[in-house]
């Protein structure tokens, strides 16, 4: 075999390896992008859980603290606003408002020791605490996934494939407006 044939084979070999590497990297990026999408939709799963728990909570509290009508109504109204919100910006605002009304409700419950000791209420409280945590952790996991994905598409040599195939960096879940960063005030 002469030099030219060998040279040709080497070039061919390099090309094949290059194409394979490109395909493998592309597939990896697809997997990561889908992980990001999935993590985002998992947040909604937890948010819906919260909606489902609220009617039961309102009924239990009504049984003991009937004159706290205003607080209870706020919670119910906030929940409806969440479920009918259109678009992610409006939904985020509504969610934050609902969280605020729930905090007010639990603050008010402190005045009713019988209610606090009620078995049903305690279970609900655990469920709601857990649901709030799950929403937080789902958002945390979404952010972690976005971080990993963004790092991947920015690092060499994966960024070559990312730029050619238009993989864009995703946004993290962030609290948008300054007033949302403040904890909701509780009025007695």
């Amino acid at each position, binding site marked *: 075999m002469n030099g030219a044939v060998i040279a040709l084979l080497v070039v061919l070999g390099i090309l094949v390896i290059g194409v394979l590497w490109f395909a493998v990297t592309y597939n990896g990026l697809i997997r990561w992008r889908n*992980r990001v999408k999935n993590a985002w939709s998992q947040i909604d799963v937890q948010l819906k859980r919260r909606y489902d728990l609220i009617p039961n909570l309102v009924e239990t509290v009504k049984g003991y603290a009937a004159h706290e009508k205003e607080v209870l109504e706020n919670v119910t109204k906030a929940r409806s606003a969440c479920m009918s919100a259109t678009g992610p910006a409006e939904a985020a605002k509504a969610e934050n408002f609902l969280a605020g009304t729930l905090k007010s409700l639990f603050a008010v419950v402190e005045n009713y020791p019988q209610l606090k000791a009620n078995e049903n209420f305690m279970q609900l409280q655990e469920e709601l605490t857990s649901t709030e*945590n*799950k929403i937080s952790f789902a958002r945390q996991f979404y952010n972690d996934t976005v971080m990993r994905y963004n790092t991947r598409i920015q690092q060499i040599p994966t960024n070559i494939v990312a730029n050619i195939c238009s993989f864009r960096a995703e946004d993290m879940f962030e609290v948008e407006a300054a007033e949302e960063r403040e904890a909701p005030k509780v009025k007695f």
Partner: protein
Amino acid sequence: MEQAYLWTQIRKNRRSSYLVMFLTTALLVLTGYVIGMAFARGEQAGAYLGLAFALTLSVILILATWFGGTKIMMAASRARRIEKKDHPRLFNVVEEMAIASGNPMPAVYIIEDSAPNAFATGRDPQHAAVAITTGLLGKLDRDELQGVMAHEMSHVRNYDILFAMIMGVMVGSIALLCDAFLRATWYGARGRRRRSSSSGKGGGAQVIILVAALLLAILAPIFAKLLQLAMSRQREYLADASAAELTRYPEGLARALEKISGDKEVLEAANRATQHLYIVNPIKAFEKRAAGAFSTHPPIGERVRILREMSHTMAPRRA
């Protein structure tokens, strides 16, 4: 000294454990090679044969223990599987950690024992289980419980159970090889007096190889054990850092560890074989000596210090 920051802690611990694993593999390879060579009276082929034997042995043992499973571990520890209704708070805490890690929910078990401890098993997050004693469950508040569960679940998602199994098999193989060689040499030496000496091929080099092999056969098992313990300690630190990554609240785990270390009670169902899987060494005598190279867990004081440092470096800046 560099402050403990969440992400650097995780990377540092992973790197250390890979180094330990590499050293153990190197030790196993070296042992197989030298002993094989000594057996074959200096011939090259013998060395490769010894190596092949060591590796085959390891692979067989790994496969045998791979499918061994959670059920055996749980039965040995007298654990009872629970559903959400049995203990909603424990179940919720574990579920929250499953969401934070993006992994499926593990099976949850409770052990009737007043000594506080917890552990996790499972070859990967899809086949995982966590267990906690009634003693520990009663002592911890929600954040502390979550820290402990996060630590245990991190063992699974970092594949520590798999690591420990591979390390155990390698160390066991080294010990077996060395033991077999020492016995063979002992009996061989006694028999040689009655026979005429062998062909005398390369006599001087043969003796050197024999001495080297004997030294290695005595020292290698000890080194292997030390490496295994070092690995175990590194993975504990990693599990602590991973738990902090999940909860983003290292203070919870730090408080839980302090509560556990204050307790003097002995966990009945634990023994030497299972001690490395627990969050704190259940054999009290070992916990006392934890400052040394011979323990499976790092000292609790050190673990708490690192967790609190992570907490401090994680805190948001005041405007």
